[in-house]
C-alpha cells in the first residue's frame, strides 16, 4: 500500500475529516483528510461516485461539508482583494451572450472593476491561453478546445492561489486534450499556482500531477496518496517513457484496489 506523503510545509488548504451527506441520504464523502501545499499539482482520481467533484466543490465553498471542516492556514497572508480560487468546470460554462473578452472579464467585473481598468489583465489571461485574437468572438463561434481555453483564461484572470479543475478536458478529443495538458502545465509553472485537478483518466493524472490522490467510493474516501516524482517540465518524451508506463501501472493498480474496496460498481 503506498504511503501518504508527510506534510512538508503549512498546507494552503486542508480538509479535515470532511464528510458530506446529501439531503437524499447519499453519503458522498466520509472522513476525508487531504492537505494541499502551495505549488503542488494534485489530482483526485477515482471511479464515478467516489466524491471527487464533491470534494472539489467543498474546497471551492460551493458546497458545505456536513462533517469536518476546510481550513486555509495561510489565509492571513493573502493580499487584499485577490480571489483565492479559480474554478474550471467540465463544460466550458461560458456566457453564450457575451464575447470572449466579457466572459474572461466576468470575475473582475463581479469584484467591481470596470472593463477599461481590467482590459490589460483580460488581455494577459487570453495571451496565456493563446486566444488574444479572439477577444471579440462569441463562444458559439469557437471550437470545443478553444472554449475550454477561454474558461481557463477566465479562471486565471484573477491570478488565483488555487486553481480547481473538475474534469475539464473529459469532453475533448485526445489531440486537443494532450495539447491542453501541456499548456496547462506550462501555465501552472509560469504562474507558480496550485492546482487540484479531478479526472477519470490514469494517464492524464500521471502525466500532469506531482501527486495523485486515489479515492474509493461508497462512501467517498481517500484510498491512496501517490507521489509522482518526475521533474517538470514534462513533454511528449515523458509520455512515451518506460518511467511513465511504470507509474501508470502503479496508479492503475491502486485504482483497481480502490474500486474493489468500494464494493460492486
Amino acid at each position: 500500500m503506498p504511503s501518504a506523503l508527510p506534510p512538508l510545509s503549512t498546507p494552503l488548504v486542508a480538509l479535515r475529516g470532511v464528510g458530506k451527506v446529501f439531503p437524499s441520504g447519499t453519503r458522498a464523502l466520509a472522513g476525508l483528510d487531504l492537505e494541499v501545499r502551495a505549488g503542488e499539482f494534485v489530482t483526485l482520481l477515482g471511479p464515478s461516485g467516489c466524491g471527487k467533484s464533491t470534494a472539489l466543490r467543498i474546497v471551492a465553498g460551493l458546497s458545505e461539508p456536513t462533517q469536518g471542516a476546510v481550513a486555509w492556514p495561510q489565509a492571513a497572508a493573502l493580499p487584499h482583494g485577490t480571489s483565492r480560487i479559480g474554478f474550471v468546470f467540465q463544460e466550458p460554462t461560458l456566457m453564450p451572450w457575451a464575447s470572449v473578452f466579457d466572459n474572461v472579464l466576468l470575475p473582475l467585473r463581479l469584484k467591481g472593476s470596470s472593463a477599461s481598468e481590467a482590459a490589460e489583465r483580460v488581455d494577459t489571461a487570453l495571451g496565456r491561453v493563446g486566444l488574444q485574437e479572439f477577444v471579440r468572438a462569441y463562444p458559439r463561434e469557437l471550437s470545443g478546445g478553444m472554449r475550454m481555453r477561454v474558461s481557463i483564461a477566465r479562471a486565471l484572470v484573477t491570478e488565483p492561489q488555487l486553481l480547481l479543475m473538475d474534469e475539464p478536458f473529459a469532453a475533448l478529443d485526445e489531440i486537443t486534450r494532450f495539447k491542453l495538458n501541456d499548456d496547462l502545465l506550462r501555465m501552472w509553472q509560469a504562474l507558480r499556482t496550485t492546482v487540484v485537478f479531478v479526472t477519470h483518466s490514469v494517464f492524464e493524472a500521471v502525466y500532469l500531477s506531482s501527486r495523485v490522490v486515489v479515492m474509493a467510493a461508497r462512501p467517498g474516501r481517500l484510498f491512496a496518496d501517490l507521489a509522482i516524482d518526475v521533474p517538470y517540465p514534462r513533454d511528449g518524451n515523458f509520455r512515451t517513457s518506460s518511467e511513465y508506463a511504470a507509474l501508470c501501472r502503479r496508479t492503475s493498480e491502486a485504482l483497481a484496489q480502490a474500486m474493489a474496496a468500494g464494493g460492486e460498481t
Partner: protein
Amino acid sequence: MIAAASARERRERALRLILPIVVLVLGLAVWELVVRLKDIPPYALPGPGLILRTLKTDWAVLSESLLVTLTTTFEGFLLAAAGGVGLAVLFNQSRLVEYSLYPYAVILQVTPVVAIAPLLLIYLPQQAAVLACAWIVAFFPVLANTTLGLNSVDRNLTDLFSLYGASRWQKLWRLKLPSALPYILGGLRIAGGLSLIGAVVAEIAAGSAGAGSGLAYRIAESGYRLNLQRMFAALLLLSVAGIVIFYLLTLINYLSLRRWHESALEAER
C-alpha cells in the same frame, strides 16, 4: 453535388414564396368571378376589387381608425412587456410575492377577455379600459416565458457567480436576465399579436362612436349599415397590422440573438 443541392434549395425557397401568392391570386380571381357572374350585390358579398377601391376611397376614415387601434395595441404591448417581465423578476426574487400573486395572474389569463371587457368599460374611462384589455390578454405569455427563462439558468454559471461573490443584483442583471432573453423575446412575439386581439375585443365591446374610434369599431359600425366592403377593408387592415407586428418582433428577436442563440443561428454546416 453541392451545386445541385443548393439549386434544389433555391427552387424550394422560390416555391415557398410563389405558391402562397398563386393561391391568393387564384382565390381572389374565383371570388371576383363568382361575384360578377352571379351578380351578387355588395351588401351580400363585395368582390375583392370593390374592397380594394373602398380601401382607397375610405382611406381617410380607415387610416385614422388604424392609427387609433395601433396606438392602443402598441401601448398595451409595452405595458404587457413591462408588466410581464417586471412581475416575473419580482416572483423570481421573492417566493412570498410569487405564491401570493401568481394564482391571480392565471385567473386573469383564463377568464375570457370578452367577458371582462364590459365590466372594465363600466369602471374605467374608455381609453383606459381598452388599454387594460390589451394588457390583460398580452402580459401572461411574457410573464410565463420570462419565469421559465429566469429558472433555466445554467447551474454551473450560477455556481461561478457565487464563487466570485456576485450580489443578488449582479446575478439578476448579468446572469438571469441575459439567460432569459430568448424566452422573453419568445413571449413578446406572442404578446404582440395578443395585444392587437385585446385592443380589438375591447373596441368592439366599447362600441361607442366618435372621432377616436378604432378599426374594430369601424367593423361593427359598418356591419350595422350593411357596408360590407368597408368591413372587409377594415378586416384586411387588421390582418396586415397583425402580420407586420409579428414580423417586426421576429426581426427584433433575430437581431438580438443572432450572435449567440441556437434559435437565431443560420444552419452553416
